[in-house]
Each structure stands twice: as C-alpha cells, then as structure tokens.
C-alpha cells in the first residue's frame, strides 16, 4: 500500500467520526494544573515542623504569617514559632498550613509524596511531571498527559484541549490532529480571537469562506506527499463556524467569567490570572465544549526573601482549586471531573543563605478524582533529608501511568516508563 493511500485512509478514519456532539462521548472532564516554580511540600503535603537532619521548617523567622488561615503556632525554639501540623481524625493524612481551603475537601484528595524527580532544572522537572520523560536535547520527547487524554477521549469535542500556559507537548505522527492543544496565554484571549464584527461580513459570508478553504485543503491533500497537514487544516477550518458564534465569545470574556463565578478570587495577589483559568474551565465544561483544560499557576520559585510569601501563595493556589471543585459540585460535574496538580519539583528542606529554599529532586502531587482512592497519601520521604523513600519510590511516570489506567487507557501508548499503581485506584 502506498504511503499516501495509507495516510489518506488513516486521516479518513480519524475524521469518519463526526466532529462533536453526535458520538457518545465519555462525559469525563479533565483539569491539569501546573503549579509553576517548584513548591515547598513541607508546607502542605509532607509537613515538617521539627529541625531534623537537613530539615529547617517554615517558621516565624522565614514566613510571613499574615492571613494564613491554617497556621497555628507552636514553639520551634525559644525565639521562633513554627506551625502545628494539621492531623484530622477523619482521614489518615497530615497537612501543612499551605493547604488552605482545600483542607475542607481533604476526604476527596489523593496525595502522592516522595516522587523521585532526578532533576532540579525547571524545564526538565516540568517536562518530567507532564510527560513522564526528561527533556532530550532541550525538547520534550513524548506527549504530555493533557494531549494523551485529549487524543483518547477528547477529539469529539469542539475544543479537545485548551492549554493556558501549561507545558503541553504534542509529539509524534500517530496522534489525532484534533488533539493539538489550543495554547493561549490567558483565558481572556480566547474570546478576542473568536470575536467577529458584523459591520462588513455576516455569518453566511464566513461560512462560504470556510467551505471554500476546507475544500481547498482537501484538494491539496489529494496531491500532497504529506496529506495530513492539509487534512488537519481542513478539520480545523470546518470546526470554526461553531466556535465563532457570538454566544461563545460573550461567555468567555473576562467580565462574563468573573460575573458568572464571583466566588473565585480574581484579585489574589499572586494567582489572580489563575482564577480566570479556573472560571474558564468550569464554564467550558458546563457547555460541554472541552475535554481537557490545563493551566499554570506560578509564583512558587522562592529562592530568597520572597520565600516569606510562599505559604500564602500556596494558600491562594489551593484556595482557587477548592473553589473550583465547589463550583463543579454546584454544576454537578465533580463526579466526572478529574484534576491533577503537579509542580516542577519541591524545594530544599534547608533554608539557604538568602532566606529562601532552592530546588530539590523530590516532589508531591495532588489528584482529585473519584477514580482514585480518596483521603489517602501514597509514597513517602525520609525524615532527615526529604528524599523519596521506600524500596521503589514512585516517580511521575508511575503517577501518569496510573492516571491513564484509571480511564482504561493503555499507558504504553504514551509512556515509555511508569507502572500502574493499582493500589491508588478506587
């Protein structure tokens, strides 16, 4: 079979499914959040409040306590106070004060500690967490988790994967082109690109233009040695009319999102933009337009005096997530929305000379999904050096493999490494 013919068939089969709506979809939604910069796990998931080995806990020496809702003082030494570890009786979990409002949803959380990162480079840690592979030649060698999910479960949606500053990677030729992530700097810009003026052209004009361009793309595909480029353009062109409706544009302006979801803190000092991403995710899922929304929330790379506000930034981060979960509850979507939150790596257990914490090759991650065992912690670190402990420490590929397996997706299609940890699954 000639390559061209084979590819045409492949393209045809990918497109034989209608673009959205009619196909029975899984009705599951996914939110991936990159907490950019590297978080201090001793402040939320793997709390430490004692000086032991390398560990210097957060204290009044290095942390601004203003507005930290879960910081209850205990003495660290004669001059300094640290925080009391939150140890609720209803779940076998402990938390630090950074957990913020997510503490109220603790019975729905799955935390993974002691993730072996083997890196302390931002881009490499980010890539490892998102794709299960380290960078190769400065580039991601595998697709990211949001693309994998979009490819498997999302191509029937109008917007399979919206990526707002998230480290999405679409790698390889075997993925459905519709799963190429829509990358935008913020949710606000989506509406602007969808806007159209009625002063000159009307919707029928645009429909005619789109039809012509789709036809041209198909015609070019027939003569091309690489028809998939043109088929991809044709598919994307034909999806445009649905996107360009004014209803969508109006729903996704920042003002509309803020009015629809006033519960989110858009004025949060560090993560105000992230609140908009969360609002977009909820609205897009309510309208069944997306399968995956991924976004990044930053401000955690605190190497120096800015570490004073790290706990506060975490509180904002988890507060945004908690509010988003509650909004999904209200929309009756939370039983089929699955959230994964990760960071580049964690921060050193020691405080450095500038009063901050540097990068460290350990990590924690958070899953909020009914397909995972909830109110549980998996993985651990040693007491003195905060390094992954146990006979076989977990690593990001294991978590990603388990996540994919939770949805009956063969992890080997996307991950070279990683074992499914069945014990994590509900």
């Amino acid at each position, binding site marked *: 079979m000639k390559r061209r013919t084979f590819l045409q068939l492949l393209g045809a089969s990918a497109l034989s499914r209608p673009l959205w709506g009619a196909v029975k979809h899984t009705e599951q939604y996914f939110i991936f959040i990159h907490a950019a910069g590297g978080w201090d796990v001793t402040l939320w998931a793997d709390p430490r409040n004692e000086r032991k080995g390398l560990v210097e806990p957060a204290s009044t020496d290095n942390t601004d306590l203003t507005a930290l809702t879960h910081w209850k003082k205990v003495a660290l030494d004669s001059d300094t106070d640290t925080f009391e570890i939150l140890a609720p009786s209803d779940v076998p979990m402990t938390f630090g004060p950074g957990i913020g409002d997510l503490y109220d949803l603790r019975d729905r959380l799955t935390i993974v500690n002691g993730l072996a990162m083997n890196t302390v480079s931002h881009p490499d840690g980010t890539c490892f967490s998102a794709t299960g592979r380290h960078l190769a030649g400065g580039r991601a060698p595998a697709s990211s988790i949001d693309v994998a999910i979009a490819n498997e479960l999302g191509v029937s949606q109008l917007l399979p994967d919206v990526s707002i500053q998230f480290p999405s990677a679409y790698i390889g030729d075997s993925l459905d082109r519709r799963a190429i992530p829509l990358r935008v700097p913020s949710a606000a810009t989506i509406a602007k690109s969808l806007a159209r003026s009625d002063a000159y052209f009307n919707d029928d004009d645009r429909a005619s233009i789109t039809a012509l361009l789709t036809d041209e793309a198909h015609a070019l595909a027939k003569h091309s040695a690489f028809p998939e480029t043109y088929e991809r353009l044709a598919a994307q*062109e034909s999806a445009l009319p649905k996107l360009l409706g004014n209803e969508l544009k109006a729903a996704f302006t920042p003002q509309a999102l803020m009015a629809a979801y006033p519960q989110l803190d858009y004025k949060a000092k560090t993560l105000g933009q992230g609140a908009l991403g969360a609002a977009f995710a909820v609205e897009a899922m309510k309208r069944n337009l997306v399968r995956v929304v991924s976004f990044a929330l930053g401000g955690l790379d605190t190497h120096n005096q800015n570490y004073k506000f790290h706990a506060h930034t975490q509180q904002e981060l988890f507060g945004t997530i908690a509010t988003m979960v509650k909004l999904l509850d209200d929309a009756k979507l939370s039983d089929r929305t699955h959230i994964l939150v990760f960071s580049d790596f964690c921060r050193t257990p020691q405080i450095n000379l500038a009063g901050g914490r540097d990068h460290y090759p350990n990590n924690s991650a958070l899953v909020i999904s009914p397909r995972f065992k909830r109110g549980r912690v998996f993985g651990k670190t040693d007491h003195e050096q905060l390094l992954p402990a146990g006979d076989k420490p977990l690593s990001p590929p294991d978590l990603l493999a388990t996540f994919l397996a939770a949805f009956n997706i063969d992890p080997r299609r996307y991950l070279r490494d990683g074992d499914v940890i069945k014990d994590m699954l509900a």
Partner: protein
Amino acid sequence: MRASALVLLAACGAGTVKPSAPAPLPAEHQVVLDTTPKERRRMLPPEVYLRAYLGWFGGLAPLDVQNRARPKGLFDAWEDYLSALGLPDYKIDLPRQTQSNTLMLATLGRLGEVLCVRAAEHDLHVKTPLDQRVVFAFDPKAGSLDEFSVGFDVLHRTFLGYPVRLAPADRAQKFYALFDEVRARHKAKNPLSPDETAWAAVCAALVQHPEAELY
C-alpha cells in the same frame, strides 16, 4: 567463499567447470527501507506572518495598524492575538507553536478579515490611484470569470506567491463562485459596495488559504 570453493574444486577436479550466472541468494529476512520523503509542510513563523501583514497594511507600524484596524469592532489589540498565533514568549519559556490549532486559525481569520476590509476601504472604496494600492492593485471589474481572473491573479500573487495560471485549474472558478455569492448577498452598500465586499471576501479567503499560511 563460494568463489574460492569453486576455484578449489576446479583445481582438484578433472576438466573445467563452465561458469554460470550466479543464482540469487535466498532471502533470510525482510529489511524495511524507509524511502518516504522526509520533508513536511510547516506553518509560517508568526514573525514572518506579522511582517508580511504590516507590509500588506501599507508598511505601517504595528500600533498604527492597531489604531487603523479598530473601528467598528474589527480588532482589539495585538497582545490579544500574538500568543494564539504561536509566538514564543521567552519571558515565561513558552515555546513557539509550530502546528496549527483551531484557535490559531480563528485568530488568522480575524486578522485576515480586518486586513481585507480595510484594504478594500482604502484601495477600492475611496478609489486610491492604482500605484498607491498595496492589495487591490487592479481594476475591480468582475462581470465575468475572465475579468475576475485578472484581479484574482494579483491577489493570488500577493498572498500565495505565484501566478494563478500555475494553480489547480478550478481555483479561479471556485473563488469566482465565492465572489458571486458574497456580491449577491450584499445588495446594498453597507458600508462597502457589494463588489467591494465580495473582493474583500476573496482577499480574506486567500490570506487564510493553506498555501498562504504554510511555508
């Protein structure tokens, strides 16, 4: 090995063995040779698109284009579109997007519309002299396919970089059909004449054409 065995036999045996054509060796296993061409079509880098776009707007600076484009809700601000076009952001290590997605096409569509509408206003509506027109540098008469093809060739060269005579044979016809449709739809002058609106539509379709958006 075989040759030396033959020589040995020849040396040992009586008489001469006539040489015969070597038989093909039996295959042991298949080796797949990848002879497919490695070249691919790729998207125009956003910097190239932006530079071309400013040129099509008469060589204006970006903020001047923004000001000219904005009336009647045709344009917001460049910063609303740049990331969707695939531009990298080195400040936050956001890499360049080399593959298209629906939002990118929507953004290119928005930019294409404003370019063509403003060009139609400037070149056709106010009847700018021919030598001062950037886009519609032709007589816009389009009473027939032949008349249309003259102007279409100018636009085809502008946005696709080659004459329409080398395009697929039915391309001019397809675009003339678009022209006719849009012209018929816009009977009244609002704010461009039907012909002007139709030319703007042809322009918008060409500037969003795959051959314009790809390398």
